[in-house]
């Protein structure tokens, strides 16, 4: 059979499988409060901004018309290695416990160009012990979006862009600065994600169950944003909303994974797009085998995915107390010092990629890096073999890490729980 008929069969099958309608409720982007005044430097004379010029006030901070957007920006120049040259705003109306996200578009040929967010420090005031986070420009000479986050432990807050010492002759342009509460940014991101999932759910080249899952994701995003809008920032449960938003946004480019022969068939409710748990049973002496499918449906290009098994251990709650030692607490959180007993070392768990050969699947070694390639919309299969020869009958646990090497295409690593029962 040639490739073309095969593709036609697939296309026809996929079209047949597009029964699910995409009805995710549209939700408008929430308004993100920018705590910075004159963020785009469109008002004259850098209004709202202060200049920090250390040394002998040698630095230069001035308006510029070389803008990222609009017509204005600010230019910062540090002429000597001892000159501190920062543009800053500070003392924002925020509270301890909040997380802030500061971002700015910066253009520079120096790697010393810096975006800094500080808690507990006031430029021109009395410094105390303070917390700080910074992001630097790559020195590419182009506009780059710098971004930092800070969970506030101390007040007041200072936001600054510029150079510290050791930056002689360095120059930067800054534009479109935004200091916002993380919650607002997450909600904004969640709206974008929901829209993206909804669009993907309409793709007719994807299998129906994946489209169902995407549709579910889109609806869940809309719900989360609604909850965010309805829950006051200081209300009980808001932290839970924030966590849910974080998880939701993090999974926007998730690699779709499932265990061959089981998921996602027959389950009631939303279709899971990621594999969370593998349950395996084996007679002692046999291999326990699972086959995992990977699908890079959201990416724009192929991604290397590492499949990394971890040690198989005796669950802590079934682990006998070592002789001569004090009883461990019944409270699991108090037993973190107890190391789980390893019964099957990771190095003995075999990982193989299944590749087609002459109409059948052939298992090949994925190599030293344990990576397989996941091209866009082409499922890949990996077999994981757990030898049980040395295991006594009982229940064991472990994890399997599915680690895409490009989060922009396939999302963060997936930790799959492994439950192994040896009879």
């Amino acid at each position, binding site marked *: 059979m040639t490739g073309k008929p095969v593709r036609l069969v697939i296309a026809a099958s996929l079209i047949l499988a597009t029964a699910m309608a995409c009805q995710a409720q549209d939700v408008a982007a929430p308004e993100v409060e920018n705590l910075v005044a004159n963020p785009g430097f469109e008002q004259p004379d850098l209004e709202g901004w202060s200049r920090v010029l250390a040394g002998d006030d040698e630095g230069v901070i001035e308006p510029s018309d070389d803008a990222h957007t609009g017509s204005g920006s600010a230019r910062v120049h540090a002429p000597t290695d001892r000159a501190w040259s920062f543009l800053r705003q500070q003392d924002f109306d925020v509270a301890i416990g909040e997380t802030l996200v500061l971002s700015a578009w910066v253009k520079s040929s120096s790697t010393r160009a810096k975006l800094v967010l500080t808690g507990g420090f006031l430029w021109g005031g009395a410094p105390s012990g303070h917390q700080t986070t910074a992001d630097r420009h790559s020195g590419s000479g182009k506009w780059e979006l710098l971004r930092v986050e800070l969970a506030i432990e101390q007040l007041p807050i200072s936001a600054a862009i510029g150079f510290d010492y050791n930056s002689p002759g360095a120059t930067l342009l800054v534009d479109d600065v935004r200091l916002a509460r993380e919650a607002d940014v997450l909600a904004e991101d969640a709206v974008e994600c929901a829209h993206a999932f909804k669009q993907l759910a309409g793709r007719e080249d994807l299998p129906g169950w994946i489209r169902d899952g995407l549709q579910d994701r889109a609806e869940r995003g809309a719900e989360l944003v609604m909850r965010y809008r309805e829950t006051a920032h200081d209300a009980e449960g808001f932290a839970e909303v924030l966590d849910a938003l974080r998880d939701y946004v993090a999974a926007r480019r998730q690699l779709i994974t499932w265990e061959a022969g089981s998921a996602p068939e*027959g389950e009631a409710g939303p279709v899971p797009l990621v594999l969370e748990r593998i349950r395996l049973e084996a007679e002692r002496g046999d291999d326990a085998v699972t086959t995992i499918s990977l699908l890079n449906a959201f990416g724009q290009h192929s991604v290397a995915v590492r499949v990394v098994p971890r040690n198989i251990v005796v669950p802590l709650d079934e682990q006998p107390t070592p002789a001569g030692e004090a009883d461990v607490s019944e409270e699991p959180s108090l037993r973190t010092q107890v190391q789980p007993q390893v019964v099957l070392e990771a190095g003995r768990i075999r990982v193989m990629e299944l590749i*087609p050969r002459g109409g059948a699947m052939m298992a090949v070694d994925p190599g030293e890096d344990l990576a397989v390639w996941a091209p866009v919309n*082409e499922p890949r299969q990996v077999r994981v073999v757990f030898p049980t020869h040395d295991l006594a009958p009982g229940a064991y646990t472990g994890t399997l890490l599915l680690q895409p090497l490009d989060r922009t295409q396939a999302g963060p690593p997936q930790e799959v729980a492994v439950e192994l029962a040896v009879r």
Partner: protein
Amino acid sequence: MPGTRLRVLLVMAVAVILLPVANATLIVSEADLWQNVIVPDREPPGDVLASLPTATAPPGDVPTSLPTATAPPTASVERVDLRAARNEYECAALNVHNTGTQAVYLRAHVQPVAGGLSGRPLQALGQIVLREAVHLRNIRGALVADALPPLRPGQAMTVPAGEVRQLWIEIYTGDLSPGVYDLSLRLTPVGGGTVEEVPLRLHVWDFELPKRMPVAVFNWDYGIRGRDEPMRSRYLRAMVEHGINVFHISGSPKVVCNAEGELLEEPDFSGWDDLIALERPHARMFLFENWQFRGRPFETSQGEEVEYLSEPWVRAFEAWLPKFVAYTKSRGLDYEDWAFYPFDEYIGPDFVALAREIKRIDPQVQIFTDKLTDAEQVRAAAPYTDIWCPYDGHFGETYAEGLEIMRESGKPIWFYFCGRDQKAFPPMERYRLMGWKTWARDLQGCTYWNIFGGGGSLWDDFDSTHPDPGSVYTGRDGPVTSRRWEAFRQGLEDYCYLWLLDQRLQRAADDRPTAQRILDAAADDVLEHPDTATVEQWRRRIASAILQLGRERQ
């Protein structure tokens, strides 16, 4: 609906089985070894980049690549030539483009062509390692083909339809006889199809790179310490094969004394025994990085601090230092075999005060510092410093006076660079040029921070507080090298070429103006034009001059 899902799954399973039946077209082209961006292409979407945990690169301005061949060459390379001295690692990179519509799975291996070894056995070729360049996203948002895991025997390399993968060939010449070796790289599709053959020609020059690196090459050890065998030895072997000859021992056993500074316990340094024994055969020297000196006092048995550099502290130190020296002697280390590295990137008053005490108690103990700052501080530290190691970026006008004081001291000067976002560092400019800079600046050593370090998975810049600065990745059977670490090794080999030519010029009976001009001009030109073509051109010129001088001597 479950039925529909089942049908789709079945169709997908059939598709997986049937998709890759031959019918793919492979084109193999030679690639620039030090370009980690294999195929410059589209940028990743900005919203996605911004969503990365700590990604700092912007949408639209990211130096990136996709493993997608948008404009592959029209024909495969006719032959790949590798040129090397004996005892040298030489590499070539080949891009494998799949212009077909189906993924191909390739098995790659190198074999001699008939008569290509001039009767010598294949084993004479030393080590040939095939690697695949694996793409991963770095903290600056770029997709770089940095990791170079070896291809195991029988392992298949996947080239999806319309994409390109890079195959890396590494040959160690060992003590191979000079001459030309003709080989063939065979790419065999799994499941049948046309075998792609690429002729390789290895030219082995009639000179050998020094068995012991003529300069100090240090690195911070975050890979060996804490590992069990056999991994520990594998990590060490990788270090040695990449030129490391100065090893790092850090931490220091607790020192307990009373309030008057009398030692209450015998210091126990035996925790270092294994590491020193393992590394000593490969070590030019050791650096003992003693964190306890960084303002942390000796402690009393009640856990109370003895004030740093106070009288009791000095008394305790006077008792402790000879015991430390005795320990190093018991491990077979003489004074020239080790140095204290008491503070990191600091030579202020505390450094000077401590260094003064060390020299007062035992003037033969060597002291290392990795800080170049203003002239005043360097001048104060100079009488006590035995090895200087300033930062790469400080070789310039700003610190010229301090650097001059270092040079006037007559003590060895090494240099280093550092940074956490090293997966974003260019292999040529940052790593390969280390050897050239060492030569051009007339230094006695080089290093960078660091090879093995990182948090979480070394394959993921985004899974811990900071990106992973290290140059290797965790492999199943040991460290997996990177394009950056290979560039560093090749830079050290470049240094050896320059050193060999210099040695031969010094031994020549009369002036050799052409060879001298090559030696004088090479490093400056390479540093001004840091590209692969320029470096290779100079390397061949230097090799030619070495060969010429060698022939004349015979």
